[in-house]
């Protein structure tokens, strides 16, 4: 499998709910939303790399209670692959423009802080999406005041990401069996992208059309409110978890700002 295919495969799995086991799956979605917000606040406001690293380690340990370590590693690898060219060019820019070891070191530390921030925020979102059923996300968003039309649309969009990226991989391999080559000159590359993007757009539009029809025939959006078969209950350990998140974030912020 090529590097690009591996990257697409990993990215496609980021927003797909897969686990029903573990402590995080039993948490109320709102508790996980609190985790996201406290993590964002902490990573934006705190600039000490030690504290950021500690937060990252805590989140990875927390995630490993419900998510396979292999998946967490592949998320980190995908993000690193995405950021690596930017890191490379900013280091080259600093070293050629300033020609000072001190500046290069300073840039390297800033890059490391930014990288840890990125990984910390992404693992918080990852925990939320991978351990929460899409229907639960839609229900909770609806409960906190977002109209269900939009919350459902948001969930469909998330689910579509993985479908579209697997379609993309399929189309690339199909066009390759027809002799498509995108490794040659610029013109061939453009032609290659057209051969992949046009079928991708058409098949995506076909899917959208099918979903729209199936939603309309079921009367989706006829009324502003709706009922639900299942409801998420706020348990005692949710309160404990939120308390833990807020305490951790406040302590870290107290020492970190």
């Amino acid at each position: 499998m090529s590097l690009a295919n591996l990257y697409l495969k990993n990215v496609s799995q980021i927003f797909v709910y897969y686990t029903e086991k573990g402590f995080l799956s039993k948490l109320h979605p709102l508790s996980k939303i609190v985790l996201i917000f406290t993590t964002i606040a902490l990573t934006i406001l705190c600039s000490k790399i030690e504290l950021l690293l500690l937060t990252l380690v805590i989140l990875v340990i927390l995630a490993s209670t419900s998510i396979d370590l292999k998946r967490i590693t592949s998320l980190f690898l995908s993000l690193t692959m995405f950021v690596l060219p930017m890191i490379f060019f900013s280091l080259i820019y600093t070293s050629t423009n300033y020609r000072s070891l001190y500046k290069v070191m300073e840039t390297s530390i800033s890059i490391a802080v930014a990288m840890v921030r990125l990984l910390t925020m992404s693992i918080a979102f990852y925990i939320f999406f991978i351990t929460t059923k899409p229907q639960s996300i839609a229900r909770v968003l609806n409960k906190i005041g977002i109209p269900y039309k939009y919350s459902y649309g948001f969930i469909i969009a998330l689910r579509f990401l993985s479908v579209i990226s697997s379609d993309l991989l399929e189309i690339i391999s199909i066009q390759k069996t027809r002799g498509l080559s995108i490794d040659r000159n610029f013109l061939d590359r453009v032609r290659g992208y057209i051969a992949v993007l046009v079928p991708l757009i058409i098949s995506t539009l076909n899917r959208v059309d099918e979903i729209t029809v199936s939603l309309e025939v079921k009367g989706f959006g006829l009324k502003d409110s709706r009922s639900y078969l299942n409801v998420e209950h706020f348990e005692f350990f949710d309160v404990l978890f939120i308390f833990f998140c807020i305490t951790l974030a406040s302590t870290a912020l107290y020492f970190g700002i």
Partner: protein
Amino acid sequence: MRNLSEEANAYQNVCNHVVIVDDVWFKYEEEYVLKRISLKIEKRDIHIVMGPNGSGKSTLLKILAGILKPQKGRVYLCDRDIDVLARRDLTKYLGYVHQNPWFYIFNPTIYEEVAFTLRNLGIDENTISKNILEVATELDIVDLLDRSPFTLSEGEARRVVITSAVAHKPLLLLMDEPTAGLDYNLKKRFVDIIKKLNTVFGTAIIIATHDTDILTMIDNAKLVIINKGEIVYRGEVKDALNNPKIFTNNNLSAPVEVEIASRLGISWRELINFNGLLFEVAKLRGSLCR
């Protein structure tokens, strides 16, 4: 430049076996989805690979098309290891038809769409137009060649994709669920196309499907049933049709004709002949009434 038909004949004569699958194992994640798969496909063979959903049929086809690489075992295409074959040779030897025709189509006209593989193989324009006309005539899409592919129906789009896959006269045609979403008449038409490709161009064909309806239409083909990643039956289609338990034991339903015939206590061939007779009578009645 060499004529494409000559080239096709030349490499068909060179190969001893079209495909040899030698003890192939494949896994996506932890568990193997294909285990101990061994197959031999000869020239002009039609193989139908059947199995319930998730049995590994499509994965096997992707391995044969060089899209996936098995963790264990080897695949030989025209006596050469598929791993060492150049992409151009793979394209030359293979035609791959996916179940979704819209994953192929991107050109403004159907002619351009069918010519895509031929141009990638570096064939000259005269040979391309000759080849396209020949294949399009056989598959009955000559009238469609100047049309935009985005105005096609599902059945027409499938025929265009098949034409595009065989325009370069491949040695082997791989078809993944080609009858999905087609009604009985379109399936029959599709089977006629398969038979034509096999007899006119000598193409070996592998069809992966869980649609047992087509079995009674191509009863001279060979059948391979895969269940839970392993080959559980290998033999002639007609032998399997005489023993419907082969299907039911492997989470597949036997063709409707076979089920009805076994309940009536007659052979499925008798039933099909009787059905054909009824059809002819109905046609005759229709023409007499007019």
